[in-house]
Structure formats: structure tokens, C-alpha cells
């Protein structure tokens, strides 16, 4: 949409019509312009229909328009006759973020989130994120909370941000923390790509959007340069290392950044690697459902003994690490 709006074009459109319908999603932006220009008066429009009839939330589908403007029936759902459970988006099988969120949940930390696949950490079973606003807000929110609640939350607060989002808008609020003597710990979820929107290249990857070689930002050097003295790197598939790295950073009386480093499992380079799926051994499973706490969509927990889909499991081994009974093993191992 252009701004300012093309007034002459819109006014010539209004000329000679009786009723104008302004069909726009969210706030009445175009509608308010029309009212400010008072198209009613010079052009004889007798009525403007906009947000007085249309909702300012959600998508304006044909059915919403039919219901609101044409007073039609709109959608007929079968939900009253048969249960249709929702299907929320989930982190992928083997997603590196799962390891971090399992640990955040375990440590009962307050965590401010950001925008990306990793926003899904707010959902069960992790329930790991407490806020999500806009890109870069996670770090700024954490610092804000630290400023007013340091005595309450103390060492139990972290900000979570992805690599792409960090380079886009996370550096400025982090400088703010250093400059204003904060102690907030930031977890930089470096999965070497922009996961959510489809693996676009970013300045940390060493490739341009056209896939030509370019300079790759070195996070450690960047962080040292802006005044973060404590920078550590962990592998989120190693839950003990993950927990230790986060605890170590939280214990410091200074701002710290811990980098969770493992590539997105959906990258072509990762998908090309051989995968060795796991299975649940019936005789060993105690039906405790602890493996479900990793939130993996390859595990079907609707049966008493959880089932791992051999086609979807990539063998990350996170569920097996959680199992107290060694009931989750690579499929090949059982065959041997």
C-alpha cells in the first residue's frame, strides 16, 4: 500500500457512488482517510461501511464478508456434531530448540521470547516462554523486567533469541544491557539459518541471499566487541551441557550470552545426513510418558506405550536421554 494514499484516484472512484465499502483487515486505515477527506460531502456518498460492520481481528475470508456485509449464513462447521481437535504447529522432530526449552522448563526460569520457530517454546509441553512481542523485544523485555524485578526474579531470568533475529534487531538492546550495567543472560539460539520463514540467508551464514560467498559474522567476536565478557557455546542435544552453560551464565553478576549451536534439522545439508530412527522397547517401557516432555511430533503419546514414527524420527536421541529405563533405542540396535 502506498502512503500518502492516492487521493485523486480514490476520490474519482467515490464520485457518483452512493455507498462505499471499505474492506480492510485490522485497523480502519483507509476508512479513516476517507472520513477525514469527507468524501461524503463533495461526492454525494451517502454511506461508508467499514469497521462499523467488519471485525478488526482475523482474516477477512469470503465467509466473514458474507456474514457481516451480506447477512448470509457463512461457515457451517461440523464441530457441534463431531470432535475436531486442533492441530497446533510444533517444533520439528530433532529440533535443536527442544533441548534448550526442556532445560528452561526444568529450571523453572522466566524467559522472554522473540519471533521465530522458537516462539513455539511458549506452548506445552515446554511452557518455557513468558513473553513474545516483536523482533528484538525478547532481550529488551528481559532487561526491563530485570530493572524492576531484579530482587524478585534475581538469577532466574533469561532472554531467548534466534541467530537471524539477533542480527536483525537483537544487538541494539544487548548493547543497552551492557551500557546500563544489566546482568541479564541471553540465550542465542544459533541454528545457522532463518528457520521459520524458509531458510533465508542472513549475515551470520557466509552466504548472500543469492547464495554467493560473503563475510560471516563471528558472534563471539561481535559479542566481545560490544562488551559481553562471558560468551559460551553449548550443543542443545547435550542436555547436561545445556543446563550447565545456562546455570553458569545465570550465576554471574554481569551480562552473559550463551550460544546454543546446532543447525536446523530442515537444512538440506542436515537432511542429507544418514538418520537412524529410534523405537520404544515395549518390555522396558514403564509408561511414565517422560519422553513426551521433549515435545517431539514423531512420538505419538496417545497410546499407553508411546510410539515413535520410524519415518519421521531423525535419531536426535533427546527422548532416549530422558528415558530412565533405557526403553528407547535405535531400531538397528534391536535387530542386531
Amino acid at each position, binding site marked *: 500500500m502506498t502512503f500518502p494514499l492516492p487521493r485523486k484516484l480514490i476520490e474519482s472512484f467515490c464520485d457518483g457512488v452512493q455507498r462505499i465499502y471499505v474492506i480492510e483487515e485490522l485497523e480502519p486505515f483507509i476508512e479513516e482517510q476517507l472520513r477525514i477527506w469527507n468524501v461524503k460531502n463533495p461526492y454525494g456518498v451517502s454511506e461508508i461501511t467499514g469497521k462499523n460492520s467488519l471485525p478488526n481481528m482475523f482474516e477477512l475470508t469470503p465467509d466473514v464478508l458474507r456474514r457481516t456485509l451480506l447477512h448470509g449464513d457463512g461457515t457451517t462447521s461440523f464441530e457441534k456434531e463431531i470432535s475436531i481437535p486442533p492441530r497446533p*504447529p510444533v517444533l520439528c522432530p530433532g529440533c535443536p530448540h527442544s533441548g534448550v526449552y526442556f532445560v528452561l522448563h526444568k529450571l523453572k526460569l522466566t524467559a522472554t521470547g522473540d519471533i521465530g520457530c522458537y516462539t513455539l517454546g511458549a506452548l506445552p509441553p515446554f511452557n518455557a516462554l513468558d513473553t513474545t512481542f516483536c523482533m528484538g523485544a525478547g532481550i529488551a523485555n528481559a532487561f526491563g523486567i530485570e530493572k524492576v524485578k531484579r530482587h524478585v526474579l534475581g538469577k532466574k531470568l533469561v532472554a531467548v533469541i534466534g541467530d537471524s533475529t539477533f542480527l536483525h534487531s537483537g544487538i541494539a538492546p544487548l548493547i543497552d544491557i551492557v551500557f546500563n550495567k544489566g546482568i541479564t543472560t541471553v540465550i542465542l539460539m544459533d541454528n545457522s539459518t532463518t528457520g521459520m520463514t524458509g531458510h533465508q540467508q542472513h549475515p551470520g551464514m557466509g552466504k548472500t541471499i543469492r547464495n554467493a560467498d560473503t563475510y560471516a559474522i563471528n558472534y563471539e567476536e561481535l559479542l566481545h566487541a560490544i562488551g559481553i565478557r562471558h560468551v559460551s557455546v553449548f550443543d542443545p542435544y547435550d542436555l547436561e551441557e545445556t543446563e550447565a552453560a545456562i546455570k553458569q551464565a545465570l550465576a554471574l553478576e554481569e551480562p552473559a550470552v550463551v550460544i546454543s549451536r546446532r543447525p536446523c534439522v530442515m537444512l538440506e545439508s542436515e537432511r542429507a545426513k544418514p538418520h537412524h530412527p529410534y523405537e520404544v522397547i515395549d518390555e522396558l517401557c514403564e509408561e511414565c510418558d517422560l519422553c513426551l516432555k521433549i515435545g517431539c511430533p514423531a512420538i505419538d503419546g496417545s497410546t499407553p506405550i508411546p510410539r515413535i514414527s520410524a519415518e519421521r524420527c531423525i535419531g536426535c536421541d533427546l527422548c532416549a536421554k530422558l528415558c530412565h529405563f533405557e526403553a528407547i533405542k535405535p531400531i538397528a540396535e534391536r535387530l542386531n
Partner: protein
Amino acid sequence: MANDPGKNLLFAGVGGQGVLLVAELAARAAIHAGFDAKKTEVHGAAQRGGSVVSHVRFASKVYSPLTPAGEVDILVALEKLEGLRWASFVRPSGLIILNEEERVPAQLTDKPVEYPRQIDTFLIGKGFQTVLINATEIATSLGNYRAANIVLLGAIADAAGIPMDSWMAVIRQHLPPKILELNINAFENGIELKRRTHAAASHLTDH
């Protein structure tokens, strides 16, 4: 193509199953056959695992890609529950091609969500022409379970009213050579299966 009402197609499934690919192929096949076509898609925040739906409309002239509820001619569901979720968009006695694959959704509550049973019986009861196909099993037997989406696409090839040479042309043009033969196989299996089901159904009504 003058004043050809065309068809409204709806493709539904779970992220990662290849919903968007088959929708793209259907739209391109319609264009190849001389129709005007429009397509749009809705998918969740994550790349995989969420509910995915894509609208494809083709006719001599299409103004908007979204089909209103109750006006879809053919619904292709790559997963059963997703077929149920979008069935209310199908017109009375419209065609629903249902993959037998069931994927239990992620659990957002402590109490496990019950996967609805007898989805096909429910849809038949609603008067839809409901065709159940075990596309995932067929694709697996052909060499890769991922080709289930193309089996299902084959199952609507006749009903969509798009000439077979247009389907074949876009499949050859858009799928990588490495998996082309598998997918042509999958497509032809889908066509055959639907024809056989149709024949069986007509046979039943004959008596």
C-alpha cells in the same frame, strides 16, 4: 474455455506432507489446459507439523483464490483429521478424497486429545462422495512414502476435468528428474485406484 465454471479444489494436510506441492501442480495443470487459475495457502508458523490448507480455483475467469465454505467441489485430504476439519467447505455431495493416514496432533493439554474415530463414516453420512485411499502405503510400496501426495493427486485427475496430458506435462516439468519416475508411478496408481473405486461404487448401485 468460454464460460467453463471449472472447479474449486481444496488441499489439506499436515505440514511436511507436500500439500503445497500438489496444490501448485493442480493450479499449473489447470493453466496448462487453458483455464484461468488462482491459488492461495494458509500454514502455521513452523515449517512442519501444523495444519496446512491450500485453495485452488480454476475456471474461464477466476477473481479470487479463496473458495467460500460450502462451494468446494473436490477436497483432497493428505491426513484424515485434516479432511474432517475442512469438510464443511465442500459443497453438498461434493467429492472428498481421504488418505487413510492418521497423525495424532500435538497435545496442548495434560489430558490426551482423542483422535476422532470413523471420520469416513461421518463424512459419508453427510452425503459427500467419500473415497478412502491408503496413499501412504501405496507410496511406500512404490519406493517412498513421501509420494503419497501424488497418489492422491492422481485420484482427482479424472474428476477435476483437466486433460491428462496437462497433468503429465506439469508433473514432468516441475518434479526433479531423480524422483520423476516414482511420482509418475504414484500418479498413475492414484488414477487407477479412483477409477476402480468408482467402478465398484457403480456396481453396487446397479444392484
